[in-house]
């Protein structure tokens, strides 16, 4: 400003360099895209030198939380790269497990250690890799010992995290079918008396406590 003091009469004198820096700063801040020196010159009053103003600004912002970046031919303000972690927010989304996942988990919990083939036999459908992976990734299920049978298949067991989440001391505390029925979690069986409905032969021994059946089942472990 001091150097322009003697020339106050001239009306078309370009603004001081400090003023040009302010101008470029404001224009770049408000712009929706990077602007080239040419773009800036078009918008500044005549006689301005955007290159100098840009250099000045670049120095002024060095080391700040915001930096003047050169992007191709253009210039734009950007958050300092080392602060990018501030631009992230983690949102936790709560979602219910899919039916396939919860059924697979239930089978593993009640029958552990259990092989994939066994899970599939109980569910009656193939277990997708993704379902088991998801349960393992959640740290609710892990791979147990290999079964000492032909093919030495891997078994699955539930983890401590699982027990924590479900508030169980051990998987043995899971209620058996009889208890589930008593708790109303099983649909009441149609009354056998009066209506002579031929009952299909149940494949499994329904009323046996789950823990017992699980151990019975896998004597070798």
């Amino acid at each position, binding site marked *: 400003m001091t150097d322009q003091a003697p020339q106050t009469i001239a009306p078309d004198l370009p603004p001081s360099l400090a003023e040009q820096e302010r101008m470029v700063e404001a224009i770049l801040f408000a712009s929706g895209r990077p602007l080239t020196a040419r773009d800036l010159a078009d918008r500044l009053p005549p006689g301005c030198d955007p290159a100098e103003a840009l250099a000045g600004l670049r120095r002024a912002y060095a080391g700040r939380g915001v930096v003047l970046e050169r992007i191709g031919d253009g210039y734009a303000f950007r958050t300092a790269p080392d602060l990018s972690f501030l631009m992230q927010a983690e949102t936790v989304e709560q979602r219910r497990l899919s039916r396939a*996942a919860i059924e697979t*988990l239930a089978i593993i919990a009640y029958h552990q250690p259990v092989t994939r083939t066994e899970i599939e036999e109980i569910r009656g459908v193939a277990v997708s890799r993704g379902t088991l992976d998801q349960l393992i990734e959640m740290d609710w299920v892990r791979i147990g010992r290999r079964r000492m049978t032909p093919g030495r298949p891997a078994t699955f067991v539930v983890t401590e995290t699982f027990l924590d*989440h479900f508030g169980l001391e051990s998987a043995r505390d899971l209620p058996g079918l009889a208890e589930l029925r008593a708790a109303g979690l099983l649909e009441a069986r149609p009354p056998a008396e009066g209506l002579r409905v031929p009952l299909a032969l149940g494949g499994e021994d329904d009323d046996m406590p789950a823990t017992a059946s699980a151990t019975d089942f896998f004597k070798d472990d």
Partner: protein
Amino acid sequence: MTRPASPIPHLRAVPDAETVAQRRADEALIVDVDGYEGPLDLLLTLARVQKVDLMKISVLHLAEQYLAFVEQARALRIELAADYLVMAAWLAFLKSRLLLPPDPTVEGPTAADMAAHLAFQLERLEAMRQAAAQLMGRDRLGISRFARGTPEAVARTRRTEWQAGLIDLMRAYARLKTRGEFRPYAFDRRDVFTMEQALDRLRGMIGYVGDWTDLSDFLPEGWDARGARRRSATAATFAASLELARQGRIEIRQPGAFAPISFRRKPPTLDQP
């Protein structure tokens, strides 16, 4: 549109209303009552014409101007909204009270109070208009001040927390283990005599029943023994008999509670051969 033939009374107070443009504006002022946002707005415009501080406005003079305006509008057969007439009536009332010496026996606000309140309202409206203009003249966002042109969105990383409770787990297991128990419900119809069957049977038989006949005599063969079959046939036949009675084809009789029920064909009436 009708043009005013004579100079507008209230505009006489304005000395420099001589230019054509101004005259036109003044005519518009008269004709275009809709241009005002109600009588208070019009009053404020008229008050401005007094060219004095609103605090020192002559409400009496203002009332006269307003009434003259309304008169003028009526002379030009301009439909004035009811509000303007209500205000005119109120101002006429105020004017008469302002001109009369105050009556100490009259309760409530004096004419001076009413005039002061009107002046206050006009001043307040004027103040709010000026405030609005000042507000709109500020350095507004998007006009004089600008936000960052390329706001950097906060990257939202999403972590999914899977939800499952013990109940879900147990239900899932229960569902799996009881899947084999589900059977389609099949009803055994061997021992059921339906109402349709009973109706068919009764319709076929009733034509021959001139005299009271016990319900049990209508039970089909093989259904009249004791037990479930007889119960089913009895219920169906009774229900069918109600339907036929409703249609006016039979009459039903039961001498007392739990006594045998009997029917007969309804005897033809005289006018219905």
